[in-house]
């Protein structure tokens, strides 16, 4: 009996070890082929939160065609930010992109970015970034969208605040259950910025905090792993927050029609940026990559492929005209990003602790 048990155990151990031995070879050769110069060689390590839905693979391939060997490390916005900051003494990444200004300003504050002026700096609106370390690539509007089959333009809400002040929208909008995502944080940046009061708690007036309280009290909590569009399709809710780039695609998948609200103060824009990581050992190559990726041509192709809105003015010709038109008419909310960045951590904490029910 014992012998048999031992045999089984040994068999398992051998299987596992054989797994290691056998697999080590392809693993190592894979590494070698992608990094001929030993170690990570001349492969650029690129951190991004914008690798989902095939973006990472597309970029790796295009970069390869242009002569750049890149390895994309995908992580959520907050994870990528924390990782960049944690690794600042001995950076692993060479380039980071996709994070919005809020995230990049945190990384910059931790002194983990290297100033660099890309070749295409003249083609973008430098107001959208810091003009020094991180540079804008893609614009994303953070919108309030509603089911246009249920609400006409006139009957729809005119602003976020309508959601909890008008009875017809109460419980008909989805509210977030966590503030971990960039989209949610930007929604609150947009709402709280309107109530800036330096004598108020965390720079926000009591009135402002009351809005937050109402938002959480009257909304229908989001359901994990159930997209807002799925809930709209099933009639559970009729409206909620959405970044502009996903709308067209989701409308198709869930067979719903969604229209968006443009409040009179404008909408918050998330601007995805690119930056050179401080301490990179492949500075030249990384700078060339930034020059290439932000160029009008590449940004144009990227926009075309993923329906995004390039910041690079010359790239807009290649982007989806509907998207370009939408942004042309869009009023951008005037937000003091420095103020937001300074306080966002504390706001998130306060909201999580006090208002989220």
């Amino acid at each position, binding site marked *: 009996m014992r012998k048999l048990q031992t045999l089984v155990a*040994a068999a*398992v151990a051998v299987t596992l070890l054989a797994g*290691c031995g056998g697999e080590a070879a392809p693993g190592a050769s894979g590494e070698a082929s992608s990094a001929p110069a030993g170690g990570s060689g001349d492969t650029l390590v690129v951190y991004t939160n914008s690798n989902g839905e095939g973006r990472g693979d597309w970029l790796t391939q295009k970069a390869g065609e242009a002569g750049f060997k890149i390895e994309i490390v995908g*992580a959520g916005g*907050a994870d990528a930010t924390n990782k960049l900051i944690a*690794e600042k003494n001995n950076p692993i990444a060479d380039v980071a992109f996709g994070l919005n200004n809020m995230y990049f300003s945190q990384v910059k504050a931790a002194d983990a970015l290297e100033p660099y002026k890309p070749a295409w700096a003249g083609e973008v609106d430098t107001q959208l970034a810091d003009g020094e370390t991180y540079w804008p690539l893609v614009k994303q509007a953070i919108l309030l969208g509603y089911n246009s089959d249920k609400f006409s333009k006139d009957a729809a809400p005119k602003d976020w605040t309508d959601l909890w002040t008008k009875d017809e929208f109460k419980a008909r909008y989805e509210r977030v*259950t966590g503030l971990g995502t960039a989209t949610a944080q930007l929604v609150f940046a947009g709402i709280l910025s309107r109530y800036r009061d330096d004598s108020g708690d965390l720079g926000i007036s009591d009135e402002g905090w009351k809005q937050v309280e109402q938002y959480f009290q009257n909304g229908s909590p989001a359901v*994990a792993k159930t997209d807002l569009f799925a809930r709209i399709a099933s009639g559970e809710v009729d409206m909620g927050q959405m970044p502009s780039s996903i709308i067209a*695609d989701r409308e198709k998948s869930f067979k719903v029609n969604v229209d968006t609200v443009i409040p009179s103060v404008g909408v918050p824009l998330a601007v995805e940026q690119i930056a050179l990581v401080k301490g990179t050992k492949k500075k030249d190559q990384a700078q060339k990559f930034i020059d290439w990726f932000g160029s009008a041509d590449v940004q144009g192709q990227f926009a075309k492929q993923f329906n995004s809105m390039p910041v690079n003015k010359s790239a807009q010709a290649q982007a989806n005209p509907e998207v370009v038109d939408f942004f042309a008419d869009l009023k951008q909310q005037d937000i003091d990003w420095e103020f937001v960045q300074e306080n966002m951590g504390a706001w998130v904490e306060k909201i999580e602790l006090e208002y989220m029910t």
Partner: protein
Amino acid sequence: MSGTPVRAMVRSPFVLVVGVILTWFIAAFLVWPNINVLIATFFPDGSFSGRAAEKLFSSQRAMKALGNSFLLAVALSITVNAVGIFIVLVTYYFRIRGSRILFLGYATTFIYGGIVLAAGYKFIYGDKGIVTSLLLQVFPSMDPAWFSGFFAVLVVMTFATTTNHMLFVANALKGVDYQTIEAAKNLGASTWTILRRIVLPMLKPTLFAVTILSFLTGLGALSAPQVLGGREFQTITPMILTFTNSPTSRDLAALLAVILGLATMVMLAVMSRLEKGGTYFSVSKVSSELQKQDITNPVANVAVHAVAYLLFAVYTLPVVLIVLYSFADGAAIQTGQLSPGSLTLDNYVRVLTQPAGLRPFVVSVVYSALAAVIAVGGLLFVARLLQKYRNWVASVFEYLLHIPWILPSALLALGLIISYDHPNPLVGGAVLTGTTVILLIAFVTVKIPFTLRMLKASFASVNSSLEEAAAIMGAKTLYVFRRILLPLVLPAAAAITALNFNSLLDDYDTAIFLAHPLVQPLGLVIKANTDGAEGTEGVANTFVYTVLLMVITGVTMYLVYGRSGRRRNRKRLPAVPPSGSIDATDVPPAAGSTASGADSRVPAAPVR
């Protein structure tokens, strides 16, 4: 076993060698990184503030969520035992028709868990679920959203976490000496009396142990409350995860994690105290193998069969639906509409034909296997020594080895980064960040507490007279270890290795911070394919990955438990029951992990 003086202990060269290596490992990878991260967290400007505690205790939501977590923990301790004992009895103790098939159904919790499991239950009992639709036809006035809140979370988690019963209680049951049951029968005891007075008391130590496990699983509940808890029943883990991610709130996360970690330790201490009072191990030297019992009362027999098969349906339906839905498109998954015509292989083609292909699977398998083997291999010596020598030095080591239970894995990872991003004398002046080794170190460390507990338990069940006999005949320490002890604990060690392996396969929390950019494990790829893009493909991908992981973990569990289990049934019981005699101190708690967000698959919970 009474205490051994420290002086006597250090006389053995074996002890000294293991002790030196262990001291270095603990100092370098358990104490130093975590002290660094805790200092950075609680003393950001060099001075301590009571801010975190003040904020937390004045937050209604935090207190309520914490309360809910504890409530769930207590309730689960009761319900999981009830269901768990029942399914163990019908698969191993009573003669039930088709018990093999029943076993397969109940064993489904071995291979999946987390968010997909919760989603699976929602497909069935949620407001658009199959069962709800049927019920609505019978009772049109009922609330379609009946399956939500505390009740729903409790039900789902109860059925999801009986894994421990199927592993440990079943093993203990196999160790029950059949001669005592026969004797009781001869004396005229009824089925119920035998069960209550003989069988269950023998299982007590293991039941204590799995009760703590259930308690800790409840404390760390993450995905079931997120999916089914609704507004009324949210737990503390999501908040810990959010705060871990925010540098300015990390002290709150650490404090919450420490609170849960302390609850874990208190629970362990209390249980080991309770344990010491009684003697539960009456495995006789000439025990005979348990034989299945008939339920003599025909009414009871029918009732037990009915409940057993009902539970079988409850366990199996979600798995079947998850597998089915993994062939459907993302929109159908989320709206709950499934038509046979819409099932295609597209999801699998998409996932498996990514440029990265199978590489992440290979990377994860290699990392998990290495970490599992190293953790078990290394701790074999340590567990042996800690079990043999009971003195204050041993206790200190033992407690230090539990550090990974206390902190969320993201904090453990950050600690490793800030401690080893510069040449550090603790590791011979090497820089570890950016190497492939650092993730392996992290994987090994997070598996230490569970591995140690389980190994210690299996060493404890080794009959010491074997070792003494060998020693008398002149065998050296290492020889005794290699030829006597190792073969005896090897089956248990293999099982622990398999559990560790399974739970590391889809790790994200550690890997996200530590993985080498060119050697990225599966967890990162899963995250990239399922997160952010929750719209359509993302959700479908989640299901595909779950099914693929089910296959891998299923194979692993079969290799370790399925085959050896069957042999054990056929052959005579070993003199030393494999892991039947776990005492409550030797529990693999799930907590600590509580805050790691790692209940992505439930097998991970008991295994941490």
